[in-house]
């Protein structure tokens, strides 16, 4: 068990024993990942903090339900992911349709630099993910958030690994179909 997991367990035990202040250790250790995960779901800084705060509150309420057979962070991420998904179903993030973003960037209005094209392409791919149906979007979001670790992403989403792999495959297939023009932008670095 690593230091963080040991600290988490110790803090949880202190909170459950009535020391509310011990929860601050958990918040400080996990605030950045939880806010960033929320940000990947909603792409709104203010809202991501609100969502992360609600996730911490739910974690506080449900601390007693954490069974120590899984690491605390796995439980916390699963709880947060579940909350973020329902929150996004309630009030969806602002997205654009895939049809709207499938146009290649207009090089006439930019200075045509490689950085501009890279930026446009990155943005288009991210928006492409944002415009995917929820189950594929969530799969891709969690997969990349957890540094492409299938097992951790599957546990966060509460899905079997096979299902997650299938969703990742399908999500990428949809992206493939919709974004060829963007990925066809010439690679000047290789020229």
């Amino acid at each position, binding site marked *: 068990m690593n230091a963080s997991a040991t600290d988490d367990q110790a803090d949880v035990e202190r909170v459950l024993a009535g020391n*509310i*202040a011990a*929860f*601050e250790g958990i*918040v*400080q250790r996990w*605030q*950045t990942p939880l*806010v*960033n995960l929320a*940000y*990947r779901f909603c792409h709104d*800084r203010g809202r*991501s*903090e609100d969502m*992360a*705060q609600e996730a*911490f*509150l739910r974690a*506080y*309420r449900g601390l007693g339900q954490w069974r120590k057979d899984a690491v605390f962070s796995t439980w916390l991420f699963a709880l947060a992911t579940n909350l973020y998904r329902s929150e996004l179903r309630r009030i969806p993030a602002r997205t654009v349709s895939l049809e709207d973003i499938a146009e290649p960037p207009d090089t006439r209005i930019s200075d045509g630099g490689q950085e501009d094209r890279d930026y446009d*392409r*990155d943005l288009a*791919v*991210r928006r492409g*993910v944002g415009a995917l149906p929820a189950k594929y979007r969530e799969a*891709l979001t969690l997969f*990349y*958030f957890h*540094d*492409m670790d299938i097992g951790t992403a599957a546990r966060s989403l509460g899905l079997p690994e096979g299902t997650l792999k299938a969703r990742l495959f399908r999500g*990428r297939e949809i*992206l*493939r*179909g919709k974004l*060829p023009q963007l*990925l*066809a932008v010439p690679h000047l670095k290789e020229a």
Partner: protein
Amino acid sequence: MRRLTEHDEAEINSILSREDEILPSSGFTVSVMDAVRREAAAPPPIPFPWKRALPGLVVAGLALSLILVGGVAAIARLGKATTPQLSMSMPPVPPPIFHGDIGAAAIWTVLALLVAFVSVKLSMRVASRM
């Protein structure tokens, strides 16, 4: 349609992996801890008063059962009483559901009103005590 190459796949992986990281605002921890303390200070949620509600629920259940049994019995009597309509020239006249006199119907109506009144009074009493 152009198929994506392995290079493109790797590029998608690279783009989606390097999402910018944001830092929580400086007051985030304080804000969360305030919310947690408020949560801890709040009184626990009031449990549903099953003991008080049980008599009302039993009465309501019995009344519902009586109504269902009465309804089924009435339909059964209706089935026995009606004779098959052979003639198509005359429109069938629906036979009365209750064969008893008007007094019996009045008793049922009064009983139903009484049950409704008792239920309302009981629930109001339970609510006023809480």
